[in-house]
Protein backbone atom coordinates (compact mmCIF):
# COMPACT_ATOMS: atom_id res chain seq x y z
CA UNK A 1 0.00 0.00 0.00
CA UNK A 2 1.04 3.58 -0.56
CA UNK A 3 2.65 5.15 2.46
CA UNK A 4 1.50 8.67 3.35
CA UNK A 5 3.97 11.15 1.92
CA UNK A 6 5.05 14.67 2.53
CA UNK A 7 2.10 16.66 1.12
CA UNK A 8 4.40 19.46 -0.02
CA UNK A 9 5.77 17.07 -2.62
CA UNK A 10 2.59 17.23 -4.60
CA UNK A 11 1.36 20.61 -3.43
CA UNK A 12 -0.69 22.04 -6.28
CA UNK A 13 0.72 25.52 -5.67
CA UNK A 14 4.40 24.59 -6.08
CA UNK A 15 5.64 24.42 -9.67
CA UNK A 16 5.42 20.85 -10.89
CA UNK A 17 8.50 19.00 -12.09
CA UNK A 18 6.64 18.35 -15.33
CA UNK A 19 3.42 19.89 -16.47
CA UNK A 20 1.74 19.85 -19.85
CA UNK A 21 -0.86 22.28 -21.13
CA UNK A 22 -3.29 21.24 -23.83
CA UNK A 23 -0.94 18.82 -25.58
CA UNK A 24 -2.27 17.36 -28.81
CA UNK A 25 -0.66 15.01 -31.30
CA UNK A 26 -1.93 13.69 -34.60
CA UNK A 27 -0.43 11.13 -36.94
CA UNK A 28 -2.09 11.84 -40.27
CA UNK A 29 -5.75 11.21 -39.61
CA UNK A 30 -5.17 9.46 -36.28
CA UNK A 31 -5.50 11.72 -33.26
CA UNK A 32 -3.21 10.07 -30.73
CA UNK A 33 -3.55 12.74 -28.04
CA UNK A 34 -5.83 15.71 -27.41
CA UNK A 35 -5.82 18.36 -24.71
CA UNK A 36 -3.49 16.57 -22.32
CA UNK A 37 -3.03 18.43 -19.04
CA UNK A 38 -0.69 16.37 -16.96
CA UNK A 39 1.14 17.19 -13.78
CA UNK A 40 3.92 15.41 -11.93
CA UNK A 41 5.25 16.85 -8.68
CA UNK A 42 8.86 16.70 -7.54
CA UNK A 43 9.74 13.22 -6.40
CA UNK A 44 6.32 11.98 -7.37
CA UNK A 45 5.63 8.68 -9.10
CA UNK A 46 2.81 8.96 -11.61
CA UNK A 47 1.26 5.81 -13.03
CA UNK A 48 -0.14 6.11 -16.52
CA UNK A 49 -2.68 3.47 -17.46
CA UNK A 50 -4.92 2.90 -20.46
CA UNK A 51 -5.74 0.44 -23.19
CA UNK A 52 -3.55 -0.38 -26.15
CA UNK A 53 -3.43 2.53 -28.52
CA UNK A 54 -4.72 5.00 -25.92
CA UNK A 55 -1.74 7.25 -26.56
CA UNK A 56 0.45 6.49 -23.55
CA UNK A 57 3.65 5.91 -25.51
CA UNK A 58 2.98 8.95 -27.66
CA UNK A 59 2.68 11.11 -24.54
CA UNK A 60 5.95 9.75 -23.20
CA UNK A 61 7.63 10.30 -26.55
CA UNK A 62 6.61 13.95 -26.51
CA UNK A 63 7.98 14.38 -23.00
CA UNK A 64 11.27 12.88 -24.11
CA UNK A 65 11.58 15.10 -27.16
CA UNK A 66 11.13 12.30 -29.68
CA UNK A 67 7.83 13.65 -31.01
CA UNK A 68 6.93 17.32 -31.13
CA UNK A 69 3.35 18.15 -30.09
CA UNK A 70 0.95 19.67 -32.65
CA UNK A 71 -0.61 21.80 -29.92
CA UNK A 72 0.10 22.71 -26.34
CA UNK A 73 3.30 22.97 -24.40
CA UNK A 74 5.47 21.30 -21.80
CA UNK A 75 6.67 23.05 -18.66
CA UNK A 76 9.55 21.92 -16.48
CA UNK A 77 9.58 23.49 -13.02
CA UNK A 78 7.06 26.00 -14.31
CA UNK A 79 9.28 27.04 -17.22
CA UNK A 80 7.90 26.40 -20.70
CA UNK A 81 10.38 24.37 -22.76
CA UNK A 82 10.40 23.24 -26.34
CA UNK A 83 11.85 19.73 -26.29
CA UNK A 84 13.62 19.65 -29.61
CA UNK A 85 15.22 16.21 -29.48
CA UNK A 86 15.95 13.28 -27.22
CA UNK A 87 19.44 14.76 -26.75
CA UNK A 88 17.94 18.07 -25.72
CA UNK A 89 15.47 16.48 -23.30
CA UNK A 90 18.28 14.44 -21.81
CA UNK A 91 20.35 17.58 -21.29
CA UNK A 92 17.39 18.86 -19.24
CA UNK A 93 17.47 15.71 -17.11
CA UNK A 94 14.77 13.65 -18.81
CA UNK A 95 15.60 9.95 -19.30
CA UNK A 96 13.39 7.35 -20.90
CA UNK A 97 12.97 3.62 -21.09
CA UNK A 98 11.07 3.13 -24.33
CA UNK A 99 8.52 0.42 -24.81
CA UNK A 100 10.62 -1.07 -27.59
CA UNK A 101 13.62 -0.67 -25.25
CA UNK A 102 15.79 1.07 -27.86
CA UNK A 103 18.48 -1.58 -27.52
CA UNK A 104 20.78 -2.49 -30.36
CA UNK A 105 20.87 -6.26 -30.79
CA UNK A 106 24.25 -6.31 -32.48
CA UNK A 107 26.01 -4.34 -29.76
CA UNK A 108 27.18 -5.90 -26.49
CA UNK A 109 25.44 -5.27 -23.18
CA UNK A 110 28.00 -2.78 -21.92
CA UNK A 111 27.69 -0.65 -25.07
CA UNK A 112 23.91 -0.67 -24.83
CA UNK A 113 24.10 0.43 -21.21
CA UNK A 114 26.03 3.50 -22.32
CA UNK A 115 24.38 4.13 -25.66
CA UNK A 116 24.79 7.75 -26.67
CA UNK A 117 26.66 8.69 -23.50
CA UNK A 118 29.77 6.60 -23.87
CA UNK A 119 32.76 7.62 -21.79
CA UNK A 120 35.79 8.29 -23.97
CA UNK A 121 39.52 8.65 -23.81
CA UNK A 122 40.26 11.20 -26.47
CA UNK A 123 38.30 10.05 -29.51
CA UNK A 124 38.19 6.44 -28.36
CA UNK A 125 35.51 4.65 -26.41
CA UNK A 126 36.62 3.85 -22.89
CA UNK A 127 35.53 0.22 -23.10
CA UNK A 128 37.27 -0.80 -19.91
CA UNK A 129 35.31 1.73 -17.92
CA UNK A 130 32.09 0.90 -19.73
CA UNK A 131 32.50 -2.79 -18.89
CA UNK A 132 33.33 -2.09 -15.25
CA UNK A 133 30.41 0.30 -14.84
CA UNK A 134 28.07 -2.07 -16.63
CA UNK A 135 28.98 -4.87 -14.24
CA UNK A 136 28.53 -2.61 -11.26
CA UNK A 137 25.11 -1.33 -12.41
CA UNK A 138 23.82 -4.81 -13.06
CA UNK A 139 25.18 -6.14 -9.78
CA UNK A 140 23.66 -3.21 -7.89
CA UNK A 141 20.29 -3.83 -9.42
CA UNK A 142 20.65 -7.54 -8.78
CA UNK A 143 20.05 -8.73 -12.31
CA UNK A 144 22.38 -11.40 -13.56
CA UNK A 145 23.49 -11.30 -17.16
CA UNK A 146 25.81 -13.99 -18.51
CA UNK A 147 28.36 -11.44 -19.66
CA UNK A 148 28.46 -7.72 -20.25
CA UNK A 149 30.17 -8.64 -23.52
CA UNK A 150 27.22 -10.68 -24.73
CA UNK A 151 25.32 -9.28 -27.66
CA UNK A 152 21.91 -8.11 -26.55
CA UNK A 153 20.29 -10.35 -29.18
CA UNK A 154 21.28 -13.32 -27.05
CA UNK A 155 19.43 -12.15 -23.94
CA UNK A 156 15.96 -12.92 -22.70
CA UNK A 157 13.16 -10.36 -22.77
CA UNK A 158 13.51 -9.75 -19.04
CA UNK A 159 17.25 -9.28 -19.22
CA UNK A 160 16.84 -6.82 -22.08
CA UNK A 161 14.29 -4.92 -20.05
CA UNK A 162 16.64 -4.79 -17.09
CA UNK A 163 19.39 -3.33 -19.26
CA UNK A 164 17.09 -0.65 -20.62
CA UNK A 165 15.94 0.28 -17.12
CA UNK A 166 19.46 0.25 -15.71
CA UNK A 167 20.56 2.54 -18.53
CA UNK A 168 18.11 5.22 -17.46
CA UNK A 169 18.29 4.76 -13.72
CA UNK A 170 22.07 5.16 -13.69
CA UNK A 171 21.98 8.57 -15.21
CA UNK A 172 21.56 11.90 -13.53
CA UNK A 173 17.93 11.91 -14.49
CA UNK A 174 15.63 14.34 -12.73
CA UNK A 175 12.67 12.97 -14.63
CA UNK A 176 12.40 9.32 -15.48
CA UNK A 177 9.92 8.05 -18.06
CA UNK A 178 9.27 4.31 -18.05
CA UNK A 179 7.14 2.88 -20.84
CA UNK A 180 5.94 -0.51 -19.60
CA UNK A 181 9.12 -1.35 -17.72
CA UNK A 182 7.52 -4.52 -16.40
CA UNK A 183 6.35 -6.01 -19.67
CA UNK A 184 8.04 -9.30 -20.52
CA UNK A 185 9.43 -9.63 -17.00
CA UNK A 186 9.10 -12.62 -14.74
CA UNK A 187 7.99 -12.19 -11.14
CA UNK A 188 11.56 -11.96 -9.85
CA UNK A 189 12.83 -9.42 -12.37
CA UNK A 190 9.60 -7.43 -12.22
CA UNK A 191 10.03 -7.27 -8.46
CA UNK A 192 13.54 -5.98 -8.88
CA UNK A 193 12.37 -3.15 -11.12
CA UNK A 194 9.55 -2.28 -8.72
CA UNK A 195 12.05 -2.23 -5.86
CA UNK A 196 14.19 0.17 -7.89
CA UNK A 197 11.26 2.49 -8.43
CA UNK A 198 10.42 2.30 -4.74
CA UNK A 199 14.00 3.13 -3.83
CA UNK A 200 14.03 6.14 -6.15
CA UNK A 201 10.72 7.21 -4.66
CA UNK A 202 12.11 7.03 -1.14
CA UNK A 203 15.06 9.15 -2.21
CA UNK A 204 12.61 11.60 -3.70
CA UNK A 205 15.00 13.37 -6.07
CA UNK A 206 13.54 11.89 -9.25
CA UNK A 207 10.08 12.39 -10.66
CA UNK A 208 8.80 9.30 -12.44
CA UNK A 209 6.12 8.70 -15.03
CA UNK A 210 5.51 5.03 -15.44
CA UNK A 211 3.23 3.29 -17.91
CA UNK A 212 1.87 0.14 -16.33
CA UNK A 213 -0.75 -2.34 -17.44
CA UNK A 214 -1.11 -4.19 -14.17
CA UNK A 215 -3.30 -2.13 -11.81
CA UNK A 216 -1.98 -3.87 -8.71
CA UNK A 217 1.51 -2.64 -9.57
CA UNK A 218 0.16 0.90 -9.93
CA UNK A 219 -1.13 0.83 -6.37
CA UNK A 220 2.10 -0.76 -5.28
CA UNK A 221 4.51 2.02 -6.27
CA UNK A 222 2.65 5.06 -7.63
CA UNK A 223 1.60 8.20 -5.78
CA UNK A 224 -0.90 9.15 -8.40
CA UNK A 225 -2.61 7.53 -11.35
CA UNK A 226 -3.82 8.95 -14.65
CA UNK A 227 -6.10 6.99 -16.92
CA UNK A 228 -5.68 7.69 -20.61
CA UNK A 229 -8.52 6.74 -22.94
CA UNK A 230 -8.56 7.49 -26.65
CA UNK A 231 -5.97 10.19 -26.27
CA UNK A 232 -7.55 11.97 -23.31
CA UNK A 233 -6.93 11.84 -19.60
CA UNK A 234 -10.19 10.66 -18.10
CA UNK A 235 -9.06 10.18 -14.52
CA UNK A 236 -6.43 11.83 -12.36
CA UNK A 237 -6.38 10.75 -8.73
CA UNK A 238 -4.00 10.02 -5.91
CA UNK A 239 -3.74 6.27 -5.54
CA UNK A 240 -5.08 6.38 -2.00
CA UNK A 241 -8.22 8.11 -3.27
CA UNK A 242 -9.06 5.44 -5.81
CA UNK A 243 -9.07 1.69 -6.11
CA UNK A 244 -8.53 -1.11 -8.58
CA UNK A 245 -12.33 -1.48 -8.65
CA UNK A 246 -12.88 2.13 -9.67
CA UNK A 247 -10.34 1.88 -12.48
CA UNK A 248 -11.75 -1.41 -13.71
CA UNK A 249 -15.22 0.06 -13.61
CA UNK A 250 -14.16 3.04 -15.73
CA UNK A 251 -12.57 0.83 -18.33
CA UNK A 252 -15.55 -1.50 -18.34
CA UNK A 253 -17.85 1.46 -18.97
CA UNK A 254 -15.82 2.18 -22.04
CA UNK A 255 -16.50 -1.27 -23.42
CA UNK A 256 -20.22 -1.01 -22.80
CA UNK A 257 -20.65 2.41 -24.35
CA UNK A 258 -17.96 2.17 -27.03
CA UNK A 259 -19.29 -1.11 -28.36
CA UNK A 260 -23.01 -0.36 -28.49
CA UNK A 261 -23.61 3.12 -29.76
CA UNK A 262 -22.39 5.02 -32.77
CA UNK A 263 -21.60 8.04 -30.62
CA UNK A 264 -20.48 5.75 -27.81
CA UNK A 265 -17.11 7.24 -27.21
CA UNK A 266 -18.25 10.83 -26.91
CA UNK A 267 -21.10 9.83 -24.70
CA UNK A 268 -18.78 7.82 -22.56
CA UNK A 269 -16.32 10.68 -22.21
CA UNK A 270 -19.01 13.11 -21.12
CA UNK A 271 -20.10 10.44 -18.67
CA UNK A 272 -16.70 10.13 -17.02
CA UNK A 273 -16.12 13.85 -17.08
CA UNK A 274 -19.60 14.51 -15.82
CA UNK A 275 -19.69 17.77 -17.80
CA UNK A 276 -22.14 16.79 -20.51
CA UNK A 277 -19.95 17.86 -23.44
CA UNK A 278 -19.42 15.08 -25.91
CA UNK A 279 -15.92 14.37 -27.17
CA UNK A 280 -14.87 16.20 -30.29
CA UNK A 281 -14.35 13.34 -32.71
CA UNK A 282 -16.83 10.76 -33.93
Amino acid sequence: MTAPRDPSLTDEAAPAAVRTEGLAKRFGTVTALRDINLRVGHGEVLGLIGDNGAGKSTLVKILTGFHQPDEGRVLLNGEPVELRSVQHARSLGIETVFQDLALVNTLPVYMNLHLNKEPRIGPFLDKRRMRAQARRYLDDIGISIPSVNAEVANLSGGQRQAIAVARSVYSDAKILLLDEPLAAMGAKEGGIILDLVRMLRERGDVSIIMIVHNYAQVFDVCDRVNLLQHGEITLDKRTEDTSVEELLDLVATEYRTGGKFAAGRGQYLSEVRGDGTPGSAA
Partner: protein
Amino acid sequence: MADPVTSDPSAADAADLDATAAAARVRSTGLRGVGQNLMRLRELSVVLVTAVLFAYFAIGQGSAFTGKDNLGNIANYTSAAAIIAAGEVMLLVCGEIDLSAGMTFAMTPILMMLLHNNQGLPLGIALVVALLVAAAFGLFNGLVTVLLRLPAFITTLGTLYLVHGLTLKVAGSHPEPAPTDGTFVQVFASQSHWWSEIVWAIAIVVVMQIVLTSTRWGAYTIATGGNYLGAAEAGIKVRAMKIRAFVITAVFAGFAGVLDGIHTPQSFDPNAGGNDLMFTAVAASVIGGTALLGGSGTVIGALFGALLLGILQDGFNIKGLSVNTFIMVEGIAIILAMVLNTQLTRFRRGARAE
Protein backbone atom coordinates in the same frame (compact mmCIF):
# COMPACT_ATOMS: atom_id res chain seq x y z
CA MET B 1 10.96 -23.20 -14.54
CA ALA B 2 12.12 -21.15 -17.47
CA ASP B 3 14.22 -18.57 -15.76
CA PRO B 4 16.75 -17.23 -18.23
CA VAL B 5 18.36 -14.89 -15.76
CA THR B 6 19.82 -17.29 -13.23
CA SER B 7 22.86 -18.62 -14.97
CA ASP B 8 22.97 -22.28 -15.83
CA PRO B 9 25.55 -24.00 -13.59
CA SER B 10 26.60 -26.21 -16.48
CA ALA B 11 27.31 -23.16 -18.59
CA ALA B 12 30.70 -23.21 -20.23
CA ASP B 13 32.97 -20.26 -19.81
CA ALA B 14 32.81 -18.16 -22.93
CA ALA B 15 36.12 -18.19 -24.68
CA ASP B 16 36.59 -14.48 -24.72
CA LEU B 17 39.43 -12.89 -26.59
CA ASP B 18 39.24 -9.89 -24.36
CA ALA B 19 41.54 -10.02 -21.35
CA THR B 20 39.43 -7.74 -19.17
CA ALA B 21 36.38 -9.81 -19.79
CA ALA B 22 38.21 -13.05 -19.22
CA ALA B 23 39.44 -11.72 -15.90
CA ALA B 24 35.90 -11.09 -14.82
CA ARG B 25 35.12 -14.73 -15.57
CA VAL B 26 32.06 -13.97 -17.54
CA ARG B 27 29.94 -16.88 -18.47
CA SER B 28 27.84 -17.84 -21.38
CA THR B 29 25.61 -20.83 -21.88
CA GLY B 30 27.06 -23.59 -24.06
CA LEU B 31 25.11 -23.13 -27.27
CA ARG B 32 25.43 -19.39 -27.28
CA GLY B 33 29.10 -19.62 -26.41
CA VAL B 34 29.72 -21.78 -29.45
CA GLY B 35 27.73 -19.36 -31.59
CA GLN B 36 29.80 -16.44 -30.42
CA ASN B 37 33.00 -18.28 -31.10
CA LEU B 38 31.86 -19.14 -34.58
CA MET B 39 31.14 -15.47 -35.11
CA ARG B 40 34.73 -14.68 -34.37
CA LEU B 41 35.75 -17.53 -36.64
CA ARG B 42 33.79 -15.89 -39.43
CA GLU B 43 36.35 -13.14 -39.67
CA LEU B 44 39.10 -15.66 -39.14
CA SER B 45 37.82 -17.98 -41.85
CA VAL B 46 38.35 -15.45 -44.64
CA VAL B 47 41.91 -14.92 -43.40
CA LEU B 48 42.52 -18.68 -43.41
CA VAL B 49 41.05 -19.21 -46.85
CA THR B 50 43.17 -16.34 -48.16
CA ALA B 51 46.33 -17.80 -46.63
CA VAL B 52 45.57 -21.27 -48.02
CA LEU B 53 44.96 -19.87 -51.50
CA PHE B 54 48.16 -17.89 -51.35
CA ALA B 55 50.14 -20.95 -50.30
CA TYR B 56 48.49 -23.04 -53.01
CA PHE B 57 49.45 -20.67 -55.80
CA ALA B 58 52.87 -19.91 -54.30
CA ILE B 59 53.75 -23.59 -54.21
CA GLY B 60 52.17 -24.45 -57.55
CA GLN B 61 53.36 -21.45 -59.57
CA GLY B 62 56.55 -20.50 -57.76
CA SER B 63 58.14 -17.17 -58.54
CA ALA B 64 55.68 -16.46 -61.31
CA PHE B 65 53.26 -15.92 -58.45
CA THR B 66 55.54 -14.72 -55.66
CA GLY B 67 57.64 -12.39 -57.82
CA LYS B 68 57.67 -8.69 -57.13
CA ASP B 69 55.76 -7.78 -60.27
CA ASN B 70 53.04 -10.25 -59.60
CA LEU B 71 52.69 -9.28 -55.96
CA GLY B 72 52.30 -5.76 -57.30
CA ASN B 73 49.43 -6.91 -59.49
CA ILE B 74 47.67 -8.54 -56.56
CA ALA B 75 48.36 -5.53 -54.36
CA ASN B 76 46.84 -3.15 -56.90
CA TYR B 77 43.76 -5.25 -57.43
CA THR B 78 43.32 -5.55 -53.67
CA SER B 79 44.03 -1.89 -52.86
CA ALA B 80 41.39 -0.25 -55.00
CA ALA B 81 38.71 -2.71 -53.91
CA ALA B 82 39.71 -2.55 -50.24
CA ILE B 83 39.69 1.26 -50.07
CA ILE B 84 36.23 1.42 -51.62
CA ALA B 85 35.12 -1.45 -49.39
CA ALA B 86 36.23 0.51 -46.32
CA GLY B 87 33.46 2.95 -47.18
CA GLU B 88 30.96 0.36 -48.37
CA VAL B 89 31.30 -1.55 -45.09
CA MET B 90 30.31 1.59 -43.16
CA LEU B 91 27.34 1.93 -45.47
CA LEU B 92 26.36 -1.73 -45.28
CA VAL B 93 26.61 -1.61 -41.49
CA CYS B 94 24.09 1.21 -41.35
CA GLY B 95 21.89 -0.63 -43.82
CA GLU B 96 22.71 1.18 -47.05
CA ILE B 97 24.83 0.65 -50.18
CA ASP B 98 26.51 2.83 -52.81
CA LEU B 99 26.39 1.54 -56.38
CA SER B 100 27.96 4.71 -57.77
CA ALA B 101 31.35 4.27 -56.06
CA GLY B 102 32.99 2.76 -59.17
CA MET B 103 32.02 5.82 -61.19
CA THR B 104 33.25 8.23 -58.53
CA PHE B 105 36.50 6.27 -58.71
CA ALA B 106 36.85 7.20 -62.39
CA MET B 107 35.55 10.75 -62.12
CA THR B 108 37.71 12.11 -59.30
CA PRO B 109 41.22 11.75 -60.82
CA ILE B 110 40.04 13.11 -64.17
CA LEU B 111 38.55 16.10 -62.44
CA MET B 112 41.80 16.55 -60.56
CA MET B 113 43.86 16.51 -63.77
CA LEU B 114 41.53 18.92 -65.54
CA LEU B 115 41.78 21.34 -62.63
CA HIS B 116 45.54 20.95 -62.68
CA ASN B 117 46.05 21.21 -66.44
CA ASN B 118 43.34 23.69 -67.38
CA GLN B 119 42.95 25.80 -64.25
CA GLY B 120 46.60 25.67 -63.22
CA LEU B 121 45.81 24.46 -59.70
CA PRO B 122 48.69 22.71 -57.92
CA LEU B 123 48.07 18.95 -57.82
CA GLY B 124 47.52 18.92 -54.05
CA ILE B 125 44.82 21.59 -54.23
CA ALA B 126 43.30 19.99 -57.32
CA LEU B 127 43.09 16.70 -55.41
CA VAL B 128 41.30 18.35 -52.50
CA VAL B 129 38.82 20.07 -54.80
CA ALA B 130 38.17 16.87 -56.75
CA LEU B 131 37.63 14.96 -53.49
CA LEU B 132 35.19 17.67 -52.39
CA VAL B 133 33.24 17.13 -55.58
CA ALA B 134 33.20 13.39 -54.85
CA ALA B 135 32.03 14.20 -51.32
CA ALA B 136 29.26 16.36 -52.77
CA PHE B 137 27.98 13.38 -54.76
CA GLY B 138 28.14 11.29 -51.58
CA LEU B 139 26.20 14.00 -49.76
CA PHE B 140 23.64 14.00 -52.54
CA ASN B 141 23.29 10.21 -52.26
CA GLY B 142 22.84 10.52 -48.53
CA LEU B 143 20.39 13.40 -48.54
CA VAL B 144 18.16 11.89 -51.21
CA THR B 145 18.21 8.45 -49.58
CA VAL B 146 17.66 9.63 -46.03
CA LEU B 147 15.48 12.70 -46.38
CA LEU B 148 13.39 11.63 -49.37
CA ARG B 149 13.41 8.02 -48.16
CA LEU B 150 14.43 6.46 -51.45
CA PRO B 151 16.12 3.08 -51.30
CA ALA B 152 19.88 3.63 -51.62
CA PHE B 153 19.81 1.09 -54.41
CA ILE B 154 17.77 3.51 -56.52
CA THR B 155 19.46 6.75 -55.47
CA THR B 156 22.94 5.50 -56.14
CA LEU B 157 21.90 3.75 -59.35
CA GLY B 158 20.87 7.18 -60.57
CA THR B 159 24.10 8.75 -59.36
CA LEU B 160 26.02 5.96 -61.07
CA TYR B 161 24.76 7.07 -64.49
CA LEU B 162 24.96 10.74 -63.58
CA VAL B 163 28.62 10.55 -62.55
CA HIS B 164 29.58 8.28 -65.44
CA GLY B 165 27.97 10.58 -67.99
CA LEU B 166 29.56 13.61 -66.40
CA THR B 167 33.00 11.99 -66.51
CA LEU B 168 32.70 11.06 -70.17
CA LYS B 169 31.41 14.53 -70.97
CA VAL B 170 34.29 16.42 -69.34
CA ALA B 171 37.00 13.93 -70.30
CA GLY B 172 35.87 13.47 -73.87
CA SER B 173 36.11 9.70 -73.29
CA HIS B 174 39.87 9.50 -73.76
CA PRO B 175 42.33 8.76 -70.94
CA GLU B 176 44.02 11.65 -69.18
CA PRO B 177 47.77 11.18 -68.58
CA ALA B 178 48.66 10.92 -64.90
CA PRO B 179 51.60 12.75 -63.31
CA THR B 180 54.65 10.49 -63.28
CA ASP B 181 57.04 12.19 -60.86
CA GLY B 182 57.29 14.87 -58.21
CA THR B 183 56.39 14.86 -54.54
CA PHE B 184 52.74 14.27 -55.28
CA VAL B 185 53.46 10.98 -57.00
CA GLN B 186 56.01 9.96 -54.36
CA VAL B 187 53.50 10.55 -51.57
CA PHE B 188 50.48 8.96 -53.11
CA ALA B 189 51.56 6.05 -55.22
CA SER B 190 55.23 5.88 -56.11
CA GLN B 191 55.56 3.81 -59.24
CA SER B 192 58.89 2.38 -58.14
CA HIS B 193 57.44 0.38 -55.22
CA TRP B 194 54.93 -2.37 -55.78
CA TRP B 195 53.55 -1.78 -52.29
CA SER B 196 53.01 1.96 -52.46
CA GLU B 197 49.28 1.69 -53.13
CA ILE B 198 48.46 -1.11 -50.73
CA VAL B 199 50.14 0.81 -47.92
CA TRP B 200 47.44 3.43 -48.34
CA ALA B 201 44.78 0.75 -48.46
CA ILE B 202 46.03 -0.86 -45.27
CA ALA B 203 46.26 2.50 -43.50
CA ILE B 204 42.70 3.41 -44.49
CA VAL B 205 41.38 -0.02 -43.55
CA VAL B 206 43.08 0.03 -40.15
CA VAL B 207 41.81 3.53 -39.39
CA MET B 208 38.27 2.64 -40.43
CA GLN B 209 38.36 -0.60 -38.46
CA ILE B 210 39.32 1.37 -35.37
CA VAL B 211 36.62 3.91 -36.14
CA LEU B 212 34.06 1.12 -36.45
CA THR B 213 35.01 -0.76 -33.30
CA SER B 214 36.34 1.90 -30.96
CA THR B 215 34.71 5.26 -31.54
CA ARG B 216 31.26 6.75 -31.13
CA TRP B 217 31.04 7.14 -34.89
CA GLY B 218 31.40 3.38 -35.28
CA ALA B 219 29.12 2.48 -32.40
CA TYR B 220 26.43 4.82 -33.73
CA THR B 221 26.83 3.42 -37.23
CA ILE B 222 26.22 -0.07 -35.84
CA ALA B 223 23.31 1.20 -33.76
CA THR B 224 21.79 2.91 -36.81
CA GLY B 225 21.87 -0.29 -38.83
CA GLY B 226 21.05 -2.55 -35.89
CA ASN B 227 17.99 -0.71 -34.61
CA TYR B 228 17.16 2.43 -36.55
CA LEU B 229 14.20 3.52 -34.44
CA GLY B 230 15.82 2.48 -31.18
CA ALA B 231 19.00 4.35 -31.96
CA ALA B 232 16.94 7.42 -32.81
CA GLU B 233 15.06 7.07 -29.51
CA ALA B 234 18.36 6.88 -27.69
CA GLY B 235 19.11 10.27 -29.23
CA ILE B 236 21.56 9.13 -31.88
CA LYS B 237 21.45 11.22 -35.05
CA VAL B 238 20.71 8.24 -37.25
CA ARG B 239 20.20 10.23 -40.43
CA ALA B 240 23.49 12.03 -39.99
CA MET B 241 25.22 8.68 -39.48
CA LYS B 242 23.92 7.40 -42.80
CA ILE B 243 24.76 10.60 -44.67
CA ARG B 244 28.25 10.52 -43.24
CA ALA B 245 28.74 6.97 -44.51
CA PHE B 246 27.66 7.98 -48.02
CA VAL B 247 30.11 10.88 -48.00
CA ILE B 248 33.04 8.83 -46.74
CA THR B 249 32.39 6.11 -49.33
CA ALA B 250 32.44 8.62 -52.17
CA VAL B 251 35.62 10.24 -50.87
CA PHE B 252 37.38 6.89 -50.50
CA ALA B 253 36.27 5.84 -53.97
CA GLY B 254 37.63 9.07 -55.43
CA PHE B 255 40.88 8.77 -53.55
CA ALA B 256 41.30 5.15 -54.67
CA GLY B 257 40.83 6.32 -58.26
CA VAL B 258 43.64 8.82 -57.90
CA LEU B 259 46.03 6.31 -56.31
CA ASP B 260 45.22 3.58 -58.76
CA GLY B 261 45.62 5.70 -61.87
CA ILE B 262 49.00 7.09 -60.78
CA HIS B 263 50.34 3.78 -59.65
CA THR B 264 49.67 1.42 -62.50
CA PRO B 265 48.55 2.59 -65.91
CA GLN B 266 49.93 6.06 -65.22
CA SER B 267 46.84 7.45 -66.82
CA PHE B 268 43.28 8.16 -65.80
CA ASP B 269 40.75 6.34 -67.91
CA PRO B 270 37.17 7.65 -67.75
CA ASN B 271 36.08 4.02 -68.07
CA ALA B 272 38.35 2.83 -65.25
CA GLY B 273 36.94 1.07 -62.23
CA GLY B 274 33.29 1.19 -63.01
CA ASN B 275 30.66 -1.23 -61.86
CA ASP B 276 33.04 -4.15 -61.94
CA LEU B 277 35.21 -2.55 -59.26
CA MET B 278 32.21 -1.41 -57.23
CA PHE B 279 30.80 -4.93 -57.20
CA THR B 280 34.23 -6.31 -56.33
CA ALA B 281 34.29 -3.99 -53.32
CA VAL B 282 30.81 -5.07 -52.23
CA ALA B 283 31.74 -8.71 -52.82
CA ALA B 284 34.91 -8.25 -50.76
CA SER B 285 32.83 -6.77 -47.92
CA VAL B 286 30.39 -9.66 -48.00
CA ILE B 287 33.07 -12.34 -48.28
CA GLY B 288 34.89 -10.62 -45.43
CA GLY B 289 31.93 -11.06 -43.14
CA THR B 290 29.77 -7.95 -43.42
CA ALA B 291 26.12 -8.86 -43.61
CA LEU B 292 23.88 -6.90 -45.94
CA LEU B 293 21.30 -6.82 -43.16
CA GLY B 294 23.02 -3.95 -41.38
CA GLY B 295 24.11 -3.73 -37.77
CA SER B 296 27.42 -5.53 -38.09
CA GLY B 297 30.48 -5.62 -40.24
CA THR B 298 34.24 -5.63 -40.41
CA VAL B 299 36.55 -3.47 -42.47
CA ILE B 300 39.54 -5.77 -41.91
CA GLY B 301 37.43 -8.66 -43.16
CA ALA B 302 36.71 -6.70 -46.33
CA LEU B 303 40.45 -6.14 -46.88
CA PHE B 304 40.97 -9.89 -46.73
CA GLY B 305 37.92 -10.41 -48.91
CA ALA B 306 39.53 -8.15 -51.50
CA LEU B 307 42.86 -9.91 -51.10
CA LEU B 308 41.17 -13.28 -51.51
CA LEU B 309 39.56 -12.16 -54.75
CA GLY B 310 42.83 -10.61 -55.90
CA ILE B 311 44.82 -13.78 -55.26
CA LEU B 312 42.17 -15.92 -56.88
CA GLN B 313 42.00 -13.84 -60.02
CA ASP B 314 45.73 -13.48 -60.33
CA GLY B 315 46.40 -17.15 -59.58
CA PHE B 316 43.89 -18.28 -62.17
CA ASN B 317 45.47 -15.93 -64.63
CA ILE B 318 48.95 -17.36 -64.06
CA LYS B 319 47.70 -20.91 -64.19
CA GLY B 320 46.24 -20.02 -67.57
CA LEU B 321 42.67 -20.58 -66.45
CA SER B 322 40.20 -18.34 -68.19
CA VAL B 323 38.89 -15.25 -66.51
CA ASN B 324 35.43 -16.73 -66.93
CA THR B 325 36.28 -19.44 -64.44
CA PHE B 326 37.33 -16.77 -61.98
CA ILE B 327 34.06 -14.94 -62.41
CA MET B 328 32.16 -18.17 -61.74
CA VAL B 329 34.23 -18.89 -58.63
CA GLU B 330 33.70 -15.33 -57.45
CA GLY B 331 29.96 -15.81 -57.75
CA ILE B 332 30.06 -19.02 -55.75
CA ALA B 333 32.29 -17.40 -53.11
CA ILE B 334 29.81 -14.57 -52.62
CA ILE B 335 26.88 -16.92 -52.21
CA LEU B 336 28.81 -19.17 -49.85
CA ALA B 337 29.94 -16.25 -47.72
CA MET B 338 26.39 -14.89 -47.61
CA VAL B 339 24.93 -18.26 -46.65
CA LEU B 340 27.54 -18.60 -43.92
CA ASN B 341 26.76 -15.10 -42.68
CA THR B 342 23.03 -15.46 -42.49
CA GLN B 343 23.11 -19.00 -41.15
CA LEU B 344 25.48 -18.00 -38.38
CA THR B 345 23.39 -14.97 -37.54
CA ARG B 346 20.25 -17.11 -37.46
CA PHE B 347 22.06 -19.67 -35.35
CA ARG B 348 23.20 -16.97 -32.99
CA ARG B 349 19.77 -15.40 -32.66
CA GLY B 350 17.78 -18.58 -33.12
CA ALA B 351 17.83 -19.59 -29.48
CA ARG B 352 15.96 -16.42 -28.60
CA ALA B 353 12.58 -15.80 -30.13
CA GLU B 354 11.97 -12.09 -29.73
